[in-house]
């Protein structure tokens, strides 16, 4: 049965600046037209999402998974039959150097 309804807060409006900020967090580059489009679409989407905030969940514990399984572990041993060769691992990499994958610097010097 549906829980008791509580008053819902209005959905936030998504500004283009916020879209840019999230794109940066998500490591995505957007075109200016995508930025405008997403700002209006996200505002719409959040309105629909906010329906769920009508339900009173003050006494409810969150569910993050539904398997009922806990503490699934395995032996910490290497299964040699499943090891990939270096050539396979590096074979599709964008840029390699002496058996390493070259990545952009995270901290600039």
């Amino acid at each position: 049965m549906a829980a008791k309804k509580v008053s819902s807060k209005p959905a936030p409006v998504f500004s283009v600046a916020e879209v840019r900020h999230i794109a940066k967090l998500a490591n995505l580059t957007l075109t200016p037209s995508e930025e405008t489009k997403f700002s209006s679409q996200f505002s719409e989407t959040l309105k629909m999402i906010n329906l769920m905030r009508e339900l009173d969940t003050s006494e409810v514990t969150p569910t993050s998974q539904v398997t009922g399984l806990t503490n699934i572990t395995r032996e910490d041993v290497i299964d040699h039959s499943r090891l990939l060769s270096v050539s396979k691992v590096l074979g599709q990499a964008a840029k390699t150097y002496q058996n390493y994958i070259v990545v952009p610097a995270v901290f600039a010097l």
Partner: protein
Amino acid sequence: MPKALHQLTLEEALAGLKNRDFTSHDLVSACLDQIKKYDSGIHAFLEVNDQALKEAESPRPGPLSGIPVAVKDNFLTPGLTTTASSNILKGYLPHYESTVTARLKAAGAIVIGKTNMDAWAHGSSTETSDFGATLNPWNTAHLPGGSSGGSAAAVAADMCIFAIGSETAGSIRQPAAWCGVTGFKPTYGRVSRYGVIAMASSTDSPGPLAKTAADAALVLQIIAGLDPYDATSSPRPVPDFFNNLKIKIKNLRIGLPWEYLEVMQPDTRRLVEKAADEFIRMGHQVESISLIHPKYSIGVYTVVQRSEVSSNLARYDGLRFGSPRSGFGEEAKRRIMLGTYTLSSGYYDQYYNQAQKVRTLIVDDFTRAFEKYDLIINPASPGPALKVNATLNEPMFGEMQDILVEPSSIAGLPGFSVPCGFIDGLPVSFGLIGPQFSEALVLSAARNYQQATQWHHAKPRL
């Protein structure tokens, strides 16, 4: 008129092979011909296995020996490109195999090709594929549904004997409904997710798209069960689904939630109510029940799924494989960003945590309902297949189409989608869901319905 080989159900094909009425080579050849003849107009396949005929010459012995299966393109298959219909993974050749395809191959099945899908499984139309939409074999002006739209269309067009799909919320059941085939989503954890390109890890469930419920039972038998490579796969023993179908079930208590009927299109609703009447005729009880309105699931599903998507797709950085993140399509970008937002500091409680709490309400609601009822009628789609381009400028298209299956997916329940009629030449399906791990019962109920009706035998004119 006897059926052509490609039209056979899995049960019939296995019997024919055993009887030596035809060979695996004949069967694979018939399906390949069907692909050659009709797939240019349907686009169910992204890649056809050019070794399939050769493999059919000496198929591995096993319960599915020599049977051609079409596999959704998010299952890793060494030797066949695996792209999840995304430009990022265009041309990607995986180095390891999904547990599902490994088990199918070990059982003797022959992967005939990889099927089209919404890119990264983000959608319910197959229209967001970076490689072009799949069209509905019943009417190519319409969509096949999605995200397993290529698999559903391939089964409907008899381009394979059965197909494999995956469902996060609706991605097996909804395209099965729109293409008029039998789709089965197992309990979350019943079938391993290992080697399936992740969409939302807490609900992703691989499963069969088949010609009958009995066929779905045969396939589930092979792919279900504990997998040490997927920590969320269930250690519960796998029952004998196919032999279970022979047990006569009667006097089931079936709930029909009015909140679900309320969001359906009137014509489709009438056909679903007719299917419910059929269950009464078969000696079961069907009663109107009340569940949490499915509209509340939209928010839960959207937030949980977007959050998990943003995390799962963070690994695609174009460094170890694939192309750079600039290659993501619009839908993927939208989903990654919304998920990044709902997980970000300051919004986590408001969105992600609230979604997980409402998830608890939905799970508890089903638990209460299943104390009184064995099964619940739960159609996959509010209406028949929509027209091509229906997804344009509809950022919540998938969530609205899948409103009826989001609650059961969030709760990890098993469910099927079974054809129950037509509207203007397009198939309509109804569905049943049961408690977790009640696959045997759900499949038996579907089988019962298909023994009493003929809808699942209908074929599109290609």
